C-alpha cells in the first residue's frame, strides 16, 4: 500500500488550526504556500453528460445546407437577422447553441476547445453499454474491472489522501471503480460523525471513535480511520458550510453546479485532489428537443453556467485544472417524428484549461452527406475518445503512457494541449 500516513504528516493541517478570523482564501493561500504543505497538484475534472448529447445542436457546422433539410424543426441559424434565437458564430465555420453562451468568454480567451465527431468505435446504441465502455476505457469489453479514472490515479502514484479522487455522486461511478480508494459524496457537509440534531453528542462520539480506532489491532481500519478523522477535522476547520465562492460568482441551483462548487472548494483547500467526477443528466432528447428553449436548452444552460461559475471561482487555481466533458454517444443527424433525435454514434466534447489549444474546433467533422454518416444516419466517429482522454492525461497530468490507461489500444493522441 502507498504510504497512507503521508497524508497525515503533510503538515498543512496545523495552519488551519491557527487563530480566528482569516478568510477562507487566506487560509487556503497559507496552506498552499506554507512550509511542509501539500504540493499543489494538477487536477482533472470530468463531467459525464448522461443520455448522449446532440452534438449537432450544441456545436453545429455553419454552411452545411443539409443540416436544415435533415432537421427542419431543430435547425438554428447564426444569421444576425435570426434575432434572439440565433446561434453564436464561433468564427471557425461552427456555431454554438445560444444556451451555451456562458462558455464564450473562455472560448475567446482560447482556453476552451471543442473536439467534434468524437466517440467510441463500438457500434452500440445502448446507453448502459456505451457509458460502461467509455468509463472503463475499453470499448466492447464489459469485464474490465476498473475505470479509466481509477487507473489515472494509480498511474499518478501519489500518496493516498481521502480526497485524491472524488466523485460528487451518491454511488461510485464506473470510471472510478478499482483498487485505488475514491470517495463518493454528494454533500461534503455530511463528511463527519453525525447525530442529526445533537451536535455536542456527535462531537463526543467522534472523539470516542477516534480513540477506539487508534487502538485497534487491525491495521487497515486503524490507518483509514486516522486518515478519516484528519480529513473530517480539516473540513471542520475549513468550515465547508461557510464556503463562499469568489466575489461576484454565482453558481446556478442544480446538481451539477453544487458538485462543481464543492470541487472548487476542494481544489482551493489544497487537500490533494487529483481527479474529480461530476454528472449532468437529461441529454436523451428523443422528443420535442426544442431550439432556443426546451429541454436541450435547459440542460445546455445549466452545463454552461455551472462551468462558467466554476472557472471564475477557481481564480488563480485555474493553472492547475483541466475540465473535460464526455457523453456516451451522439444522436441521429435527422430529426425524428417527435421533434427530437434518436440514439446515434459520434458527439462532441469540451476541454477547458489554460494550456488547452482553445478557441478551436478540433477533430474532423465531414460534410453531412449520407456516405459520410455512420450507417447512413448518425454523426460519425472520426476521433476515438481515448485519443482525447490520453492527450489530457499526458499533457496535463504528465502521464505519457496511454497503454496503461487504455489497455489494448494503440491509437494516437489528438493534439489539443500546449
Amino acid at each position, binding site marked *: 500500500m502507498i504510504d497512507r500516513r503521508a497524508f497525515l504528516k503533510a503538515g498543512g493541517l496545523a495552519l488551519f488550526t491557527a487563530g480566528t478570523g482569516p478568510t477562507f482564501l487566506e487560509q487556503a493561500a497559507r496552506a498552499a504556500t506554507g512550509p511542509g504543505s501539500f504540493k499543489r497538484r494538477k487536477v482533472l475534472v470530468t463531467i459525464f453528460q448522461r443520455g448522449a448529447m446532440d452534438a449537432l445542436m450544441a456545436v453545429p457546422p455553419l454552411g452545411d445546407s443539409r443540416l436544415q433539410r435533415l432537421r427542419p424543426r431543430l435547425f438554428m441559424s447564426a444569421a444576425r437577422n435570426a434575432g434572439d434565437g440565433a446561434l453564436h458564430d464561433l468564427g471557425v465555420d461552427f456555431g454554438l447553441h445560444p444556451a451555451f453562451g456562458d462558455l464564450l468568454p473562455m472560448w475567446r480567451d482560447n482556453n476552451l476547445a471543442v473536439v467534434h465527431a468524437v466517440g467510441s468505435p463500438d457500434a452500440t446504441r445502448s446507453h448502459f453499454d456505451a457509458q460502461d465502455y467509455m468509463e472503463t476505457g475499453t470499448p466492447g469489453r464489459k469485464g474490465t474491472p476498473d475505470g479509466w479514472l481509477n487507473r489515472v490515479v494509480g498511474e499518478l502514484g501519489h500518496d493516498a489522501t481521502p480526497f485524491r479522487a472524488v466523485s460528487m455522486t451518491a*454511488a461510485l461511478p464506473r470510471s472510478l471503480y478499482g483498487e485505488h480508494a475514491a470517495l463518493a459524496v*454528494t454533500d461534503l457537509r455530511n463528511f463527519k460523525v453525525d*447525530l442529526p440534531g445533537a451536535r455536542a453528542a456527535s462531537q463526543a462520539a467522534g472523539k470516542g471513535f477516534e480513540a477506539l480506532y487508534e487502538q485497534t489491532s487491525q491495521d487497515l481500519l486503524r490507518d483509514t480511520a486516522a486518515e*478519516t478523522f484528519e480529513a473530517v477535522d480539516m473540513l471542520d476547520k475549513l468550515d465547508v458550510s461557510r464556503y463562499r*465562492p469568489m466575489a461576484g460568482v454565482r453558481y446556478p*441551483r442544480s446538481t451539477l453546479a453544487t458538485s462543481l462548487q464543492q470541487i472548487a472548494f476542494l481544489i482551493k483547500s489544497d487537500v490533494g485532489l487529483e481527479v474529480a467526477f461530476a454528472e449532468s443528466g437529461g441529454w436523451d432528447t428523443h422528443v420535442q428537443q426544442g431550439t432556443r428553449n426546451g429541454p436541450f436548452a435547459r440542460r445546455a444552460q445549466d452545463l454552461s453556467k455551472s462551468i462558467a461559475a466554476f472557472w471564475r471561482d477557481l481564480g488563480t487555481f485555474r493553472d492547475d485544472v483541466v475540465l473535460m466533458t464526455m457523453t456516451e454517444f451522439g444522436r441521429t443527424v435527422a430529426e425524428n417524428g417527435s421533434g*427530437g433525435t434518436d440514439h446515434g454514434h459520434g458527439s462532441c466534447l469540451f476541454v477547458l484549461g489554460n494550456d488547452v489549444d482553445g478557441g478551436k474546433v478540433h477533430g474532423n467533422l465531414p460534410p453531412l452527406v449520407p456516405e459520410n454518416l455512420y450507417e447512413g444516419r448518425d454523426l460519425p466517429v472520426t476521433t476515438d475518445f481515448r485519443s482525447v482522454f490520453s492527450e489530457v492525461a499526458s499533457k496535463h497530468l504528465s502521464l505519457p503512457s496511454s497503454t496503461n490507461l487504455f489497455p489494448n489500444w494503440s491509437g494516437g493522441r489528438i493534439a489539443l494541449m500546449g
Partner: protein
Amino acid sequence: MLRNQPPKLWLVFSAIVLSVGSATGAYAKPESEAASSLPWREVGLSERQAAAHLLDRLTFGAEPGDVDRLVAMGLDTWFEQQLAGGLPDPVVDRFLKGFRSLDLDNRQITEIYPDPSMVLRQASRAGVVDDEMVADLQNRERGERPERRQVREYAREQGYRPQRELVGEMVAQKLIRARYSQNQLTEVLTDFWFNHFNVSITDNQCRPFVHTYERDAIRPHVLGDFRSMLEATAKHPAMLLYLDNARSVADEGAPKKFDRDQFAKSQGRRGRGGLGRQGRVGQQGRVDRQRGSSEVEQAIAQRRPQGLNENYARELMELHTLGVDGGYSQDDVIAVARAFTGWATYPAGPLREQVERRIARARRLPNAGFVFEDPFLFRADSHDSGPKTILGKTYPAGRGIEDGLEVLDALAGHPATARHLATKLAVRFVSDQPSPELVDRLASRFQSSGGDLKQVLRTLAESPEFWSVEARQSKIKSPFEVTVSALRVLDVEIQHPRPVLEWVWQMGQPLYSYQAPTGYPDRADAWVNTGALLNRMNFGLQLATGRIAGLDIDLAALNDHREPASLQEALEVYVPLLMPERDSAETIRRLESVVHDPELATKIAQAAPADEVTDPVFDGWDPMLASTGRGSEDRPRRDQQGQQVLGRAGGRRPPSPPEPDHSALAHVVGVILGSPEFQRR
C-alpha cells in the same frame, strides 16, 4: 402460461437434446454424504467460541441467544441442518406475503412492469400526453419534474405497475431474508453466488429479470451442484442480456445449424423457416411494427444482431469458471462465443406471437434443433455450427445447443475452475489471504465430488484453517453484513425496509447495482475507505439512537429490561451481547476510557433536541440535493440515462423517523456498533 405451452413433441425433442448434452459431462454422482465433525476443539476453542465463529462466518450474524442455541443443539447438528437447508421460514413468509412481484415469472414481469420509456411512448401514442409533456418527463432532472399524474393514471388503466416496485421488493426481500431467515447459510451463499455470477439493475434491459435470476438461477443451486447453477445462469435472460449473448449470432458466412435460405430453397419459398431477425429482445420487443417512425427504426436497429459478441464467452471463462489465469486464449474466447451463438431470450409482446407461429412451423422439421425452455430460446438459425476447438478439445461440425452444453461441462470440470472457485470460497469464508493448502484441499474436493457445493462447504468447515486464530475476526464485514448483523444482534424488527437499505447504499454497497460483471471485490480494502468508514460509524450511532425510520428497536429488552446503573455496567452488559464470545475484556477496556471521558458523559447528557444544528445559508446549495441518507429521503439511483430509479418496497412510503433516543445507553451501543471490533467477523 398454459395457453402458450409448446406442443409435447417439442418438449420431448428439447429434453433429448438436453439429456445428450449433460450425459456427455465428466460428472460422477456425488459421493454419499457423511455427517461432519467440526475440529474446533483441536485448535483450542471453547464450544461457545466455536459457535460464535460459525455464526460469524455462515450466517449474517448472531441473534440474541444464538450461541446458547447452537451449543444446546450441537455444532455439528446445526451445521448439517444449515447444509441441508429448507427449514420452515414462517417469519420470512409472513413478511413477503404482501409483496406483489416475487412470485411472477419473467413473462408476467415484462407484461406488468414495462420499461417506463415504453409506457411513456404508449401514453403519447394514445394521446394521453402531448409531446411537450413527454419531453419534459424524459429530460428534466430530478426535483424539477412536472406533474406526471396523467401518465401514472394511464399506466394504471393498462394494468402496469412501476419498475421501482419491482426493484424495491427485490432489495427488500434480500434484507428480510438475511435478517429473519432460518436458512442463514442459504442466504449467505445466495449473496456469494449472485455476486460471483453478477448481473446488475443498472442495465435497464437486464433490470426486470434480476430478481427471477436470483430466485431461479442462483438460490436453488447454492447447496447443489455447480454445473447446474452454471447452466441456469447461462440460460437466464438477465445474464443473456447483461453480457450480450442474446445478440450474439453466427458471423456472416458461417455455417448455421438451421439455414433459413437453404430451407427456403428446398421448400420453394423465401425465408419462412426461421424466427425472423430479432435477436436481443426483452422489453423493447414491444414495439409497434405499424409505426414507421425513426424511433421504431432505431429500436430495431438497436436490436439487430451484428454477429459474434464475445462478452459472455470471455466472462464465462475469466469470471465464472477458469479464472483470469485459467489458461485460455483469445482463440478460445472466440470459439466459446461461437459455441453459444443462438442462446437467446424468448421475446415478449407482439413479437412473441410471431415467433411462436414460426416455432410451430419449425417444429415440423425434425432436425432443425430449436430449443424452447421459456424464457430461454435456442435459435438454431443463428447458431454457428462449424467445427470448433476449445481448450484443446474438438467440437465437430453440424451441432446445435450441444456445443454450449458441452462447453459448460468442460469448464465446470476443469481443474482451473476448481482452483478459482476454491480460492473465492476460501476468501469469503476464511480470510483475505487463504493458505495454498486450504485452497488445494477445497479444489480437490470440488473436483472429486463433481462440483458438489455441499461437499466443498463441509470440507471447508472441517479444515483447521477455518478455525485458526489468524482467520477468526479477520474479515471486514461488507456494508450489507454490517447492517444485517446489527439488526440481528439487536433483535430489531423491520417495519419498513427502505430507510435502513439506504444506509447499505450510503456505506458503499448499492444492492444488485454493481455495474461490472466481476461483482463486488471481496477484500477488506475494497470496503474500508474514509467515506465508507465514516458512514459505518454514523450508521451505528443513528441505528442505536433510534434515528433510522422503519425500525423497531428496544435496547432495554435485550437485557430483560434491566437498565444498567452506570456507563461501566452498560459496557459490561452490552459488549458481550453485541459481540458474543469475543475477547470483550480488551474491548471494554478500550471503550471504558472513552465513556469515562467526562466530556462524553456531559455531552450525551446534554444531547437534547434543543441542540439543533442550524445550517448556515449556503449560496447556491440546493437542499434537495443535500441528502444524507438519514432515513426518510428518497435515495436517488441512476438508471442508464442518468434518470433516477427509486427503490421503494411495496410502493409504501416509509414512516417519519422516530423520536431519537437520547439515553446514554443508546449512545454507548452506537459507539459499540460503530467500533472497529463490530466491523469484523
